[in-house]
């Protein structure tokens, strides 16, 4: 037996022993996802037990080094763990922007002191982070951002407004792009880390067309941000005024994450599920709808193969550095199409906004939610610009 086979066996046994049956059911609503943080509470004992077992094993962030709260798994081992979790349909024990976004930035740009403190906090689900990027006047043209941190020696005083801050109203800390030099567009932004409990920080949830409020407006009114949190632990990632480098690095991660959300073997093809659902509500698939579902399934299964290829190529450095933009573009457009078709297949049932049968209007709310997929994290149009310029090398793009 190879080492990897042994690891698979061991992982399978560990999951069997530690992942409660309730944590192997599909995520039904927001409460089924554990986000961690100072104010977090568990929905039930199973969620708590699963989370705690994973923290102890380093499996909330399996590929991070052990000294930062991870399990130090090699990429092939991490893949085995993903496969084994997916095999039993195990839920992620912890979801957070700390894991997906700040963590990778700190692993790449952070000081040892920052890694020791922040990565461990993230891994143990102690601090829930949010991301302060977009502003009302800076969407696709993010680098034009205006939120300003005035240098006061040992601290900054931050004033401005962020928008589309995911779950800012539940977050403990924010990683935030703040202008610290008004003369330098690209080299005048600092990637700051600070506590949302600071005086002068307020959040206001934004009601979306889906009826949900996953995003906030976040206001900074004379917020005092110290430049350091102690020995070797500055309050900014990378260097002062060089936060754009960190932001660009992270946007790559975000695009991968969003593109990944569109794929996934489990949900790639939908035709068969749509037929079952239609039959349940006493209907059948119209031949034209069936045809569109079949065309969709072709695209979705092909995209799943692309996702697999992309990950394989990333591991050995064969992927084009701008390829995540392509994945994000194709994956989000596909996901929007998926939900359009699910609405059509669902018929009038899918229109129900609050009924118990639809889990409180899930089909229609999810459908509306997907419209943001090709806007957030860089619009499809921006993705196509990047592909034109960086991959196809088209002139003046």
């Amino acid at each position, binding site marked *: 037996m190879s080492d990897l086979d042994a690891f698979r066996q061991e992982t399978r046994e560990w999951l069997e022993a530690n992942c409660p049956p309730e944590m192997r059911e599909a995520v039904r609503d927001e409460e089924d996802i554990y986000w961690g943080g100072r104010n977090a509470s568990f929905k039930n004992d199973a969620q708590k037990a699963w989370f705690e077992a994973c923290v102890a094993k380093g499996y909330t962030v399996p590929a991070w080094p052990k000294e930062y709260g991870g399990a130090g798994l090699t990429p092939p081992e991490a893949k085995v763990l993903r496969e084994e979790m997916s095999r039993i349909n195990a839920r992620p024990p912890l979801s957070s922007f700390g894991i997906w976004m700040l963590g990778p930035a700190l692993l790449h740009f952070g000081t040892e002191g920052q890694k020791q403190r922040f990565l461990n906090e993230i891994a143990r689900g102690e601090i829930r982070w949010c991301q302060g990027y977009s502003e009302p006047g800076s969407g696709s043209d993010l680098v034009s951002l205006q939120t300003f941190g005035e240098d006061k020696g040992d601290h900054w005083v931050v004033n401005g407004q962020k928008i589309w801050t995911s779950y800012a109203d539940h977050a403990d800390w924010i990683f935030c792009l703040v202008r610290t030099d008004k003369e330098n567009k690209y080299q005048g932004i600092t990637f700051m880390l600070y506590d949302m409990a600071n005086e002068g920080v307020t959040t206001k949830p934004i009601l979306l067309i889906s009826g949900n409020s996953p995003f906030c407006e976040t206001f900074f009114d004379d917020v005092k941000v110290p430049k350091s949190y102690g020995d070797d632990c500055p309050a900014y990632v990378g260097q002062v005024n060089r936060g754009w480098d960190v932001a660009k690095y992270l946007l790559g991660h975000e695009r991968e994450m969003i593109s990944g959300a569109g794929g996934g073997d489990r949900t790639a*093809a939908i*035709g*068969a599920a*749509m*037929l079952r659902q239609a039959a349940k509500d006493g209907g059948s*698939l119209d031949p034209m709808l*069936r*045809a569109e*579902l*079949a*065309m969709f*399934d*072709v*695209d979705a*299964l*092909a*995209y799943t*193969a*692309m996702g*697999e*290829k*992309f990950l*394989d*190529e990333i*591991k*050995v450095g*064969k992927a084009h550095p701008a*390829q995540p933009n*392509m994945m994000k*573009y*194709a994956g989000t457009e596909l996901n929007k199409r998926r939900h359009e078709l699910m609405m059509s297949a669902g018929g009038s049932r899918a229109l129900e906004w609050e009924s118990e049968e639809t889990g409180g209007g899930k089909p229609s709310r999810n459908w509306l939610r997907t419209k943001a997929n090709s806007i957030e994290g860089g619009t499809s*149009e921006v*993705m*196509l*610009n990047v*592909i*034109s310029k960086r*991959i*196809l*090398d*088209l*002139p*003046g*793009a």
Partner: protein
Amino acid sequence: MPLYHDDDQAMLADTASQFMAEEGSIQKQLRHWRDRDCKDGFGHGLWEQMAELGFTGILLDEADGGLGMGHVEAGIVLEEIGRNLTPSPFLTTSVLAATALKHGSDDLRQRYLPGVVSGKAVYAVAVDEGAKHKPGRIKTRAEKSGNGFKLSGQKDFVIHGSSADMLVVAARTSGGDDDADGITLFAVPKDAAGMSHDAVRLVDSSMATHTKFDGVELDGDAVIGEVDGGREILNRVLNAGRIGAAAEGVGVARGAMDMTIDYLKQRKQFGTLIGEFQALQHRAAHLYSEVEIARAVVIKAQQLLDADSEKAELMVSVAKAKVGKTAGLAVREGVQMHGGIGMTDEYDIGLYMKRDRALQEFLGDAYYHANRVAELSGY
């Protein structure tokens, strides 16, 4: 297995790419033979050169003189064939017929496989009856007659039918027209009495036949595999051919896309390179995404087929459908973005459009395979 080429496969790709660009180019092959109204539609010299490189026997076992490689490797050669629009019997002979013959008796293999390996022989596969691919319905019949069979019926869209030294023919030996069982594959030599070809040139300058079998008498040893047990072999032959056609289609798509993007970087209008226009950039970038995805699913299907996975059948159809849509997009965008010169015979982009159309139809178009994806998925 990772979804990219390993070192050996990358080396093969280099060899194939260089060879096809030099020897298999549009100028040297497709236009050359087309402009001479060649009855075969391809050059035998190139076919023998491909044999010298080992390409022709790529799927055959080493014991049969082949390279013992799989669909990933055959696909590498086919992608380069697609990029250069190289006319050759590779897909019909080295992929389709070779896959059928692998299931043949020692006698059949010894009779027919050396010709594949040496590039001296050309074989065709006759499946379709009618203008659309519908292998579930086979009306061509082979009746028992003495120690052998008597073959009657008509096959259509037989690529290289009149150039072939032997045709692999799928015929019904029992049951009704639409039965899955009761199919037998026969190796029919070119001089068989009662077989006649109506040769037609297709839009892409390739040659196909409507082939009639009028009581063609065949020995029992012309049977490939078992009598009445040909459906499974036929499915293997079709899937090998479909993924091969998909790989070639990816090559066609890439060739058309590369040519078009080069053109966007050269052509000036309104005092600027047209590649600076966002309206064209976004379409080019969208096309790039689709071609990348099509390539990925082709490799996935090739690997599954090589591993004899039960998921291969579904993924082959996904791949053929995806490539059909994508290559179609590539050639349409190619002609449109080239503007007026894209409509001229002198410029190559139109040749890509023609080849794509023929490849799409071969062994099932995107509609056929999307429908098959639905059926295999249970709806």
